[in-house]
């Protein structure tokens, strides 16, 4: 019988993961707000902002693992959906500046005044309203992914070819957003944010709230992914990953399934980008750089593809390493180290951190569970004829 949605979604490791995310999401902001600076229990604001960034990356990694780990779609352009979500949020934040900009124009952001815009471009309409921007954070990446996926999956573009066109997609967006006349601030991007929902975006309170929200988004994203991959649809995704053509012969419309997870994944990446931007205080076309998307795929590979938790863990671990190394004397070599890390993981830990841990832990756990079951049966006086192999 199919287990209930809650039991199948929340197995033991999923529960542990959620407890950790919740604990971090609650305790970190509290310690930042409640304890005075200098106290041993105080987490400084800059650290909270840094961890907030990692949490957003973890959500992005989760979205990549959903399509790559479970459905075999290797997107090397997921940074584009992240950046689009970020721009949607950035546009809201720009419009919140109002007349406080350098040029004091109540409607036009500074860069538009500087570039002699006479009026707000139509695609900036509505972004002064938070609900609209929040909707666009999901809708814009979702629509792009839907359109892109509809064309690509229907023409059965798979494997390396798909990866290459996802790179081309993010690169094309990079070039477009670099242009001043595209209307998104050119290479400077959007920055100098002031308020979010009326609160000063730089203030500790707003930062703490943004951090907690990022953790909440990560938890929700994780729950959605778990619900999807543990459903029958999740089994179909794995079937597509392992034997795409076979799946068609069973009557599944493979392209619809791919389109569904690809779009869902892009929406999640968009949310991650939207939470990222107010915490780092800027969004510029650099976020579309093809290298960013590749880096995100490396996080997933390092943490363990097809495990969800591994993806989140990989994002945090690799980015923590990046922070440590790029702020020290080894900074110029970070990219080499990242490359070496990727090669080492591929060769030595092909299942990533979590996958390797599971491979080591599962047989041990099974043995223990069997032993427990056996002793329980003996206590109950049930004589087991034989244990299943």
């Amino acid at each position, binding site marked *: 019988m*199919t287990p209930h949605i809650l039991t199948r979604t929340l197995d033991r490791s999923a529960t542990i993961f959620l407890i950790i995310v919740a604990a971090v999401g609650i305790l970190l902001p509290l310690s930042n707000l409640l304890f005075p600076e200098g106290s041993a229990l105080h987490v400084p604001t800059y650290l909270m902002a840094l961890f907030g960034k990692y949490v957003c990356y973890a959500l992005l990694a989760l979205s990549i693992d959903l399509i790559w780990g479970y459905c075999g779609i290797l997107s090397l352009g997921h940074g584009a959906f992240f950046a689009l979500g970020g721009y949607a949020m950035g546009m809201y934040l720009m419009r919140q500046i109002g007349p406080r900009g350098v040029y004091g124009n109540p409607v036009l952001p500074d860069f538009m005044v500087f570039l002699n815009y006479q009026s707000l471009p139509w695609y900036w309409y509505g972004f002064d309203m938070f609900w609209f921007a929040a909707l666009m954070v999901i809708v814009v990446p979702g629509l792009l992914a839907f359109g892109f996926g509809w064309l690509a999956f229907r023409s059965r573009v798979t494997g390396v070819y798909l990866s290459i066109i996802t790179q081309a997609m993010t690169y094309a967006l990079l070039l477009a957003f670099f242009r001043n006349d595209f209307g998104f601030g050119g290479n400077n991007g959007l920055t100098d944010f002031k308020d979010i929902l009326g609160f000063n975006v730089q203030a500790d309170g707003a930062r703490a709230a943004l951090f907690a929200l990022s953790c909440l988004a990560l938890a929700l994203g994780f729950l959605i992914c778990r619900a999807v991959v543990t*459903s029958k*649809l999740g089994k179909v995704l*794995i079937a597509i990953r392992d034997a795409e*053509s076979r799946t*068609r*012969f069973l*009557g*599944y419309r493979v392209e*619809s399934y791919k389109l569904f997870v690809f779009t869902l994944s892009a929406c999640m990446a968009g949310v991650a980008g939207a939470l990222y931007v107010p915490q780092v205080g800027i969004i510029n076309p650099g976020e579309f750089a093809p290298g960013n998307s590749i880096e995100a795929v490396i996080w997933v590979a390092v943490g363990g593809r097809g495990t969800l938790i591994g993806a989140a863990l990989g994002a945090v671990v690799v980015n923590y390493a990046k922070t440590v190394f790029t702020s020290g004397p080894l900074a110029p070599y970070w990219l080499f180290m990242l490359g070496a890390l990727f090669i080492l993981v591929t060769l030595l830990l092909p299942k990533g951190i979590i996958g390797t841990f599971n491979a080591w832990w599962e047989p041990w756990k099974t043995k223990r569970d069997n032993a427990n079951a056996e002793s329980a049966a003996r206590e109950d006086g049930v004589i087991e004829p034989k244990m299943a192999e």
Partner: protein
Amino acid sequence: MSMLETRSTPSMLYLDGVHVSFDGFHAINNLSLTLATGEMRAIIGPNGAGKTTMMDIITGKTKPDQGEVLFDGSVDLTKLDETQIAELGIGRKFQKPTVFESQTIEDNLLLALNVDHRVRGTLFWRQSKAEAATIERVLETIRLTDARDRLAGSLSHGQKQWLEIGMLLAQDPKLLLVDEPVAGMTDVETHQTAELLKEINRDHKTVVVVEHDMTFVRELGVKVTCLHEGTVLAEGTIDQVSANDRVVEVYLGR
């Protein structure tokens, strides 16, 4: 399509004048074949005769260059893709057993079940009593009940063959295309497979079986078609076909 163009035949499967070439190589040449509803047919033929390619054409994997392929009287299969053809009720077992190796045997059957295959229905799918019973029944039939939680990839070649036949049973199609089902099986297993296919056929399913194993074909006891170089060389009982001079010639080599 106008009414005039719609062809209708009383047969379950109707191939007429089918041609397929791969880069100038004629794999299928003017192939014509008819199966009545509820019939079982054995197809034999030397390596490269085009047996698998014929199944590729019927299931939409390969599009014929020429010719007619009709299912269930009037459905033109050349206009449909793999998914649509599977949904019509044509199931296939592949020559190289193709199961979902990283999933359990039970999940393999579950994936094959004849239920709503659309995204939404699959996302919110919950197993009904009837579906659970179907899976139990199939597991029993293919003798894998005890192995239900094992990964399909851990099965032996012969067991994979059975699992794939089990998937066909769960799929419950009208027409079954079974490509070399007994390769890698022991004599006992081969015999059991023949019994199983005969039983499936007694359930009013139309079955096409491709096989090299003559003992097995003899055991099926059905009409035999011999293919050679993409065309029908001989058709009849196994005794008639194996006595046919041209069949003997292609099998013994020229």
